[in-house]
């Protein structure tokens, strides 16, 4: 069924979301009561944790989904298997597959969800707000670059996990946020989205600021790494910041994640 056809039909009342970021969008659009099932990774907002779980992202349970008699199932192109969506369609269950991957795709994705669930107006407001804030951050990014008279962008690195060292590379939301904010991600030239990065190269490229995504016992693990990086300018000048994991998920909170980075970059 096409999107337009869904919009014309009555608004769906039994919605299943198979991805945490879509669940967040659905809740933000006030469709909380119509969500009847979510993936086991959907942990935000609190209300999502109480919803029936239908399995993981790569292995949702077909039985669990079907038994909830949904009239619309949301999936993502990157996170959920294509074959699963095909099975659902073959069983005459309406599906919408979201392809948004970049921060600039986010407003479009939110509008798409809004149209599909009959909340186009609310979605438009949320999307327009996000667009406005992205533009603001781009402006700030330009200013930050202008501040650095050397005409060189401040160098940044976002560490996802310290041991082994995994960082945010090209194509990730985090990389995009660093770029929008006017910094140069020193992992931009890596050939993977989440590359295992060379410690030698961090010492050499000496980033001006290091962000560390929060995780399980992260501060203790990261201590060892920072000890080894003590000659890097970010570590020397105490420009190492622990930040939330909002950027890992392309949803309404992504902008808060960008805001967090922007706040720390003002201290540069």
């Amino acid at each position: 069924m096409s999107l337009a056809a869904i919009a014309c039909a009555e608004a769906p009342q039994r919605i299943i979301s198979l991805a945490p970021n879509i669940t967040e969008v659905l809740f933000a659009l006030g469709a909380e009561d119509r969500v009847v099932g979510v993936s086991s990774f959907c942990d935000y907002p609190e209300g999502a944790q109480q919803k029936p779980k239908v399995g993981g992202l790569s292995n949702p349970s077909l039985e669990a989904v079907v038994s909830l008699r949904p009239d619309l199932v949301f999936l993502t192109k990157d996170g959920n298997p294509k074959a699963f969506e095909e099975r659902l369609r073959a069983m005459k269950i309406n599906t919408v597959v979201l392809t948004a991957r970049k921060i600039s795709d986010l407003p479009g994705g939110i509008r798409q969800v809004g149209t599909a669930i009959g909340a186009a107006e609310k979605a438009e407001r949320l999307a327009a707000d996000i667009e406005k804030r992205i533009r603001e951050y781009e402006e700030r990014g330009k200013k930050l670059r202008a501040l650095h008279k050397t005409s060189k962008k401040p160098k940044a690195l976002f560490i996802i996990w310290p041991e082994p060292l995994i960082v945010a590379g090209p194509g990730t939301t985090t990389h995009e946020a660093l770029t929008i904010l006017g910094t140069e991600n020193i992992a931009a030239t890596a050939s993977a989205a989440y590359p295992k990065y060379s410690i030698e190269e961090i010492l050499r490229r000496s980033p001006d600021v290091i962000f560390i995504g929060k995780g399980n016992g992260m501060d203790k693990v990261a201590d060892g790494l920072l000890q080894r990086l003590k000659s890097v300018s970010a570590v020397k000048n105490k420009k190492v910041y622990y930040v939330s994991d909002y950027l890992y998920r392309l949803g309404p909170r992504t902008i808060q994640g960008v805001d967090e980075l922007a706040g720390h970059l003002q201290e540069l």
Partner: protein
Amino acid sequence: MMGINVKIWLIIFVPIVVFGVSLIAGPRMINPFTADDISREILISIRAPRSMVALLMGMALGASGAVLQGILKNPLADPYILGISSGASLAAALGIMAGAAFVGTFTIPLLAFIGALITGSIVGIMGWKRGGLWPERLLLAGVGLSFLFSALLMLFMSISNDEGLRKAMLWIFGDLSMSEWSKIPYGIIFVGIGILISLSRAKALNALILGDELAHSLGFSPHRERFILFVSVGLLTAASVSLGGMIGFIGLLVPHIVRFFLGSDNRVLIPCSALIGGALLCIADIISKSVLPPMELPAGIVTAIIGSPYFLYLLRRKNVLSI
């Protein structure tokens, strides 16, 4: 043809050269004589300990593979077949998941080491019957435990949404990049003891391969010798897993490559497998950190990609095939 002594000298020489190259080569070349501050720091606190760990791990794997193939009389045996590495991985993964850090950065390697020793003991107990260790029993106990621990690991992975556990997987796949000087003395002690024990029993191992009865008539107690050699394998495997996770290929195929060239005498085979294993892992690590800078590849993958074709080539070329 080269004499065997020349070959042995060559094999001693190779790891030294490789170690030297590993200091110079990397994402960028460093000339040790004209190095600036950053380059010197990279040389001393990153490249040198990392290459040391690669050498130690490779040595432990090569030597323990040779010994294990001998005591199990099985050309397919490698240090991981006894389940020791699965036990170590399980312990390490549980530690990572629980966020354990009671002895700082030593926690995870220590947990892996303890996990390996406990698993080794269980395998030993399972393989013990009528006053001694039996090769078939050891092998099957190891395979059984290995399946059990891998399954438990997978179980925790699939029921947990914890990020930490997915990171644990990365650790299990072998990582040399975090090597530091502080762990090296322990590595040298355990790998050294393991190799010395197995070397001191090399003659007995030669006899064991001929069969228990012959070994007995040559003056060796098969059960006692097997037990001592088994302990050395356990120590070597535990040390290598806790130094840098699991690296395949070396323990299984390096002893075979050495046999192709130098024959099956364990007095030569064990030390040469150690040296070639160390050199090979060091070479693999040079490649893994240099080909796609600033990215690194897992050293275990590189080891298998460069090692396996060479092994297959030798398999076609050479006639001898024995343990």
